[in-house]
């Protein structure tokens, strides 16, 4: 099937977001705004113990408070949901804690009241006593700890590579993924040089500015859930499973999301509000506070040990990667991160022998899931810091070293999958050109030193996953698109409208896109991992083409010659004798995929497409304070062909700014499992004053075969290179290497002092 872009067409045009006016006038619809008649608010009472058996739970005082409708515990939940454990990879997470708690902040009970202030005040009256159990917090310790977070592993059965874990006891390993390509041992034995480093990343938070919010309206036979979710179809399937109801009795609706970034995936509050509404027989809304977001879902902390064999000529001949992912108390999607990201841990390099061991680990910390990159930023941080260290040790320019080892199209990636439409080389070369890498670089004077660094990463798409869409042509010729992709700010509504408009020769602005509603919009796996443009984009294109074919068939049935320019409205009128009728086009898309072999991790078809992102930075380091000012940040990505160039560029700059926070200052601090900085006062996210002095973002000319009009996903690509590029530039400026994120002024200053043989004492 070939499609061409007509000049002045809808694809490739920077259409302003369809909902632009609603957003600037404050009228955009968010679940945050939603109220239903008779609605109750739920406030959650949470565990203050990292790991403990619940000995006593006293809710009497809360129940007695004036204005409290009821107080709900796990026992109550079991009356409506007998087996109340949920999760996408493991059925390990109880709706409310049962028998024991596994992290500080875990929901234990809920107070319901018509006034949220009363519900909150009453929640403070609940008393719980725990028998403390040994806890484990560090992913390295979790590998061998005798503190076991889950007594028995309960894989969900959705993923074949988790089945072998069913019923396992006495372990915190929630998935072990292994890849073996070539003879790694022999290559290390024969190597001229061997380099080994260990890098770490910290636990951080998504911080969508619209905190988690879900509202359920249940009757004994049906339930409607309004939720700020990135995965309405998954919510429906999982709630139907929990209730043992058919899917058609569960309706899930979303509106605009005030940010998602991977936080609002799978089940978060949805199972809880359904149980609460069934018990209370009234609509129930649970809206988390900013603080509570810190107890809900986070980004994996990680430890990555990387070892490379390098030949005399600077070619990397073998690489071993061991990655430990700190998944917290519940698996969420961590096992997928471990595998789907794990297989790219050796980086975008052409290395003949690779071994990878990647482990998802349970600990007694708040759960970790997907955050804009699905584990890739943690991996790129390590392999691109390592790449620079190796290049420096060999006295080779970092760009030259990368060029020498780069993974090019037509060559096999570590899984054995042949690289196609992955513009790794073009992205790197464009970055080098923008940075004028060969020009002499001003290194600064006095106490402020200047440095520069580059990094490049790649990511596979999440496969195999399905998207389905439908396009309705109404009797006046206007058009509505139904698709389950959730617009959380990435501009998907606009991009999908552009695809419909391109096929049907309309203005994108004329296409109405309805918010996901599982009673109306067809199945979509989820809005995650930059999959929507490719997967849903294809489904939408197919649906629009199906509608176009049906319009042509209608015209033919009326005896019109092909290419007749009769208006759609007139076509309907001739067919039905009045303004009546609907044409519905449908499209369904699932890409081809071969799962990796369980023991070797090898596959010929690991992903339908690759995302490529590189970042270059120029920065200043104040050697007297350790303060780092990024003066220039350049992002270059392979986005395939951009459907909406301006939105793509905004996605790139936005992703890099988010990653800048994770790189320079964001970190969840813990004391015995208790987050000690659970507020925006103590957990700082990037603001105006934290920006690089200049940010440039561009995408290289590219075309993704099999993508809609040559497009592919781009929402995560500019997160990949930011952290290592900055660490590499700091090294370039002041000669010190930081092995753990974040790169705070204190960390930089300590490293400078240590390098000068004058280490700073502990505070």
């Amino acid at each position, binding site marked *: 099937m070939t499609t061409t872009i007509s000049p002045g067409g809808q694809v490739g045009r920077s259409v302003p977001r369809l909902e632009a006016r609603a957003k600037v006038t404050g009228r955009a619809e968010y679940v945050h705004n939603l109220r239903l008649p008779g609605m109750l608010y739920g406030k959650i009472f949470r565990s203050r113990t990292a790991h403990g058996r619940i000995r006593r739970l006293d809710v009497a005082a809360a129940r007695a408070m004036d204005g409290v409708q009821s107080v709900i515990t796990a026992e109550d939940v079991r009356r409506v949901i007998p087996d109340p454990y949920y999760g996408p990879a493991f059925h390990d997470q109880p709706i409310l804690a049962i028998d024991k708690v596994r992290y500080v902040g875990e929901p234990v009970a809920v107070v319901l009241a018509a006034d949220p202030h009363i519900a909150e005040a009453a929640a403070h009256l609940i008393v719980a006593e725990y028998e403390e159990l040994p806890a484990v917090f560090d992913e390295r310790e979790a590998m061998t700890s005798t503190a076991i977070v889950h007594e028995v592993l309960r894989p969900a059965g959705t993923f074949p590579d988790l089945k072998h874990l069913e019923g396992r006891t006495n372990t915190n390993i929630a998935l072990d993924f292994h890849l073996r390509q070539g003879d790694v041992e022999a290559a290390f034995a024969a190597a001229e040089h061997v380099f080994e480093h260990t890098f770490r990343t910290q636990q951080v938070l*998504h911080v969508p500015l619209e905190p988690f919010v879900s509202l359920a309206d249940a009757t004994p036979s049906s339930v409607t859930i309004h939720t700020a979710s990135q995965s309405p179809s998954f919510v429906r399937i999982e709630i139907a499973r929990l209730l043992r109801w058919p899917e058609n009795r569960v309706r899930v609706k979303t509106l605009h999301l005030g940010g998602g970034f991977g936080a609002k995936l799978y089940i978060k509050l949805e199972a809880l509000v359904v149980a609460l509404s069934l018990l209370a027989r009234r609509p129930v809304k649970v809206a988390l506070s900013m603080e509570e977001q810190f107890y809900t879902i986070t980004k994996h902390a990680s430890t990555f040990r990387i070892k490379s064999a390098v030949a005399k000529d600077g070619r990397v001949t073998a690489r071993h990667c061991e990655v430990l992912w700190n998944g917290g108390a519940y698996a969420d999607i961590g096992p997928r991160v471990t595998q789907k990201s794990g297989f790219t841990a050796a980086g975008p390099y052409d290395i003949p022998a690779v071994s990878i061991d990647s482990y998802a680990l349970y600990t007694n910390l708040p759960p970790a899931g997907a955050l804009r990159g699905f584990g890739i930023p943690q991996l790129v941080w390590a392999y691109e810091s390592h790449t620079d260290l190796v290049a420096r040790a060999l006295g080779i320019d970092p760009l030259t070293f990368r060029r020498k080892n780069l993974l090019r199209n037509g060559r096999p990636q570590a899984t054995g999958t042949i690289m196609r439409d992955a513009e790794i080389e073009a992205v790197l070369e464009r970055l080098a050109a923008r940075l004028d890498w060969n020009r002499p670089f001003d290194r600064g004077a006095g106490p402020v030193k200047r440095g520069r660094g580059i990094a490049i990463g790649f990511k596979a798409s999440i496969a195999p996953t399905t998207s389905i869409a439908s396009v309705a042509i109404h009797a006046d010729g206007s058009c509505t698109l139904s698709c389950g992709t959730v617009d959380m700010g990435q501009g998907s509504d606009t991009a999908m409208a552009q695809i419909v408009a391109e096929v049907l020769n309309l203005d994108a602005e004329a296409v109405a896109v309805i918010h996901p509603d599982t009673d109306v919009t067809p199945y979509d796996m989820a809005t995650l991992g930059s999959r929507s443009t490719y997967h849903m984009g294809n489904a939408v294109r197919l649906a629009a083409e199906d509608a176009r074919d049906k319009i042509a068939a209608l015209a033919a049935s009326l005896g019109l010659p092909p290419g007749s320019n009769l208006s759609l409205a007139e076509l309907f009128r001739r067919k039905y004798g009045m303004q009546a009728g609907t044409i519905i086009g449908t499209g369904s898309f699932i890409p081809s995929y071969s799962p990796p072999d369980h023991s070797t991790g090898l596959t010929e078809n690991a992903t339908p497409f690759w995302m490529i992102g590189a970042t270059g930075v120029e920065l200043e380091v104040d050697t007297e304070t350790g303060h780092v000012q990024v003066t220039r940040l350049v992002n270059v990505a392979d986005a395939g062909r951009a459907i909406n160039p301006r939105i793509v560029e*905004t996605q790139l700059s936005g992703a890099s700014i*988010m990653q800048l926070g994770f790189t320079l200052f964001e970190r969840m601090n813990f004391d015995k499992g208790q987050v000690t900085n659970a*507020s925006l006062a103590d957990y700082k996210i990037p603001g105006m004053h934290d920006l690089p002095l200049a940010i440039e973002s561009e995408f290289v000319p590219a075309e993704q075969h099999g993508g809609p009009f040559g497009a592919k996903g781009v929402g995560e690509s500019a997160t990949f290179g930011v952290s290592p590029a900055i660490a590499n530039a700091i090294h370039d400026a002041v000669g010190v290497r930081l092995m753990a994120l974040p790169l705070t002024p204190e960390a930089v200053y300590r490293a400078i002092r240590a390098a000068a043989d004058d280490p700073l004492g502990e505070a």
Partner: protein
Amino acid sequence: MNARTIRFTLNGGPATAEIGTHQSLVEVLQQRFDLFGARESCAQGLCGCCTVLVDGKAVSGCLFLAVFADGAHVETVEHLGAGERLDPVQEAFIEAGAFQCGFCTPGFVLMTRQLLDEKPDPSDAEIGHYLSGNLCRCGTYPQIVEAVRLAAKKRKA
């Protein structure tokens, strides 16, 4: 719970509400007046999502007790561009593509208006200073700075 009746001017018209003295302005605007443009996020006056103009001055509606709005002129984002034409600041935000999820946008729009009222031709440092109390997790800052410059131009035209 202490109740009080407040009378104030809301978006140009008279408004009366019986409120609890513990209630924040943003809560009262949402629950009593169905105005959702100002929204609570951090609840600490740090993110700017709840920005409201009280007597022409930007305040954090999540920290500002509704009772203090008694007798004041309160203006929310809904008052801008209520007619056919958008405010030049709103137009500039659309033209510069200066938002993604949009949750923080009303706060940025109101703060930009206050900035341009006080400094019609702001320097980059002044833009940074005025908008440092507004957070955008989508990281749309470069486009927001562009929108502020564009809005300054539009207001002069």
